[in-house]
């Protein structure tokens, strides 16, 4: 028996969607705090630029492309869900997950390469932020993929289609965080 409270909508916005937006608010300040700390420190330490030069800009650019493309399929999944086509929405969600997977694999190669070259999280200023910020973001990618598989498995059966949009909102946020991380960690040399 579901409480009546869960079905009400005094604001006219679906409860789930409203909650996702508040989750995003809290996520924005988490990444905001971390990135603001990084930027302030970076401005005070010109020499961090030399360290940043060791990151692989091309791999980062490729990942940006992959992640943006995966957001496109998240939008297409939403569109399919709006039309009530659950199986199609699920297929697009799986495609989005595939994008996330490619992103993480590329990231893994990058990190392996950097660690082999001796740049680890203990290597001081820049590298601490590099691994922490990208790691926290990667963790969000992973969490988003897990939720997406769960949403897709019920969307396939045409159940809870409103969740397709909610998980899409989250995925776009993860995307946007990367759009901040990429220039800050890779391009700014």
């Amino acid at each position: 028996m579901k409480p009546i409270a869960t079905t009400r909508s005094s604001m006219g916005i679906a409860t789930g969607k409203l909650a996702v937006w508040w989750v995003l608010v809290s996520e924005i300040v988490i990444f905001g705090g971390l990135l603001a700390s990084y930027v302030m420190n970076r401005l005070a330490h010109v020499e961090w630029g030399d360290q940043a030069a060791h990151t692989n800009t091309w791999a980062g650019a490729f990942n940006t492309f992959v992640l943006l493309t995966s957001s496109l399929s998240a939008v297409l999944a939403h569109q399919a869900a709006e039309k009530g086509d659950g199986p199609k929405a699920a297929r697009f969600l799986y495609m989005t997950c595939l994008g996330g997977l490619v992103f993480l694999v590329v990231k893994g190669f990058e990190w392996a390469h950097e660690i082999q070259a001796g740049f680890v999280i203990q290597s001081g200023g820049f590298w601490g932020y590099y691994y922490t910020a990208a790691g926290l973001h990667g963790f969000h990618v992973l969490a988003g993929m897990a939720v997406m598989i769960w949403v897709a498995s019920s969307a396939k059966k045409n159940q809870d289609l409103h969740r397709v949009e909610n998980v899409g909102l989250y995925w776009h946020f993860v995307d946007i965080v990367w759009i901040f991380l990429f220039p800050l960690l890779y391009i700014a040399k």
Partner: protein
Amino acid sequence: MSNQHDAHDHHAGAHAHHDEGWFKKYFWSTDHKIIGFQYMFTGMLLALVGAFMAYVFRMQLAFPGQAVPGWGLVSPGQYNMLITNHGSIMIFWVAMPVLIAGFGNYIIPLMIGADDMVFPRLNRLSYQLFFISVLLLIASLLVQNGGFGGAWTAYPPLSANKDFNLTPLGSTLWLLAVAVEFVAFLLGGINFIVTAMNARAPGMKAFDVPIVVWTIVIASILFMASVGPLVAGAVMLLFDQTLGTSFFNPNKGGDPILWQHLFWFFGHPEVYVVLLPAMGIVAEVMTVFARKKLFAYKTVIYTIIATGVLSFFVWAHHQFVAGIDPRMANVFTVTTVLISIPIAEMCFVYIATLYGGSIRLTTPMLWALAFMAEFMLGGVTGIYLGSSGADIFFHDTYFVVAHFHYTFFPIAIIAVMSGVTYWFPKMFGRHLNEFWGKVHFWGTIIPFNGIFIPLFILGAAGEHRRIFDYHSFPHLATPELQAMRVFATVSLVVMLAFQPVFIVNYLVSMFRGKKADKNPWKANTLEWTADSPPPHGNWPELPNCYRGPYEYSVEGRELDYWPQNEKA
């Protein structure tokens, strides 16, 4: 913990209408009232732990070097552990769970006319995470080398470097406990905000929502918007402790002041996160027992919002002596003094509400009035500390300690007591004994002032915080100053001696008290239209709302109250 769950069993056992097992009903429940009780009782039990810690270190300060009854000799390391965890427990595991999570869970759905929160299972998860954080905290006190002793603010390098704090495991567990607790409150906060936005009774507009619901929701938003940087900071500190990164390590290019910014960017809004719900509870109690409409309802709401916004721009007043740019100190002095305007305005509004009312001095009303009086002392002394010039002298003295206890004690104890005694008939269907309620009130309020007024004087005389034994400082070890320390400690012991009065009164009234009807205080808000105590689902049929919450003593009406659900 077993006491807490026993308590659930007795008061709610007879009323829950679904026949699930005992475990499922009290440990695994998604009912907002049970979860509210879980938070409230856990918080109250931890308050006893925090109070015991205060007793031990106050005894050490009054009678240094002597064995403390119930503890034994206090070592310097233990002393640091005690003050650190007293602060952490009272803020993170008492004020937050009782005021926001406890009252928020219990009263938000009842006051907005809903049968539960909008995410009942998320709510349960929130308490379970909170419970894990309690276990982590307790574990941090029991591990080898003892609990964390670097103050509740956990400034690096002391908190980051195990060669300095000497408690590697205790520090890490403490930090994890705080981080897990933040996650629990983020989940709970999202639930409160969305519930109040979306699950209101038909007809209840935003300006028909009682003040206390507004304050808890705005406090949850403040928490959510301020805690993020500290969550990131906690991860960074955890890496500094365990992986050997150098975010806050100045030897390797890190910046210890960065932690202070991250901490206080959360830490100061946190004051308002707990203050606002306390102000909300007091508003409810005052209107009911003054039998008057709340003065300037909408202004109060705008004031709450203004307080919330301003609270994000005052944090560096905790760092005036940390080497920040003096020009920045000027800016933060101005914003700090500015924030006293909305708070003072709230106090004036409450006084205006009382003015001309037919005041009933019940136990909850006494607590509410005491909140105003004591909190104002805390607020006014804050002006000295917020002014950067004066703060250079006062910083890290007992003046600061007395100041924030004059704010936090009214918030976490006085306002909570006001709420606990006010909603007691609703929670348990019986009246709290008024006589013993008042004995406990006077036995708490008078010694409270006895503890902290001497600390103001000691602080102004230059007594520094965080000193284990003043004998090492001859100018602070004079007989006059020591006499004041003894007076404060004796007052604390007297105050603690009165707390069993409350505990016994609470438990006895719960089972033997006079039966309460649905609306014993003749109040307007919707929770008083449900049965006392409300069953699972709260109402057989959910109420509609037709008017604002404070229509008391309306002219031309026979009754001096006008419940929100009455059509005409």
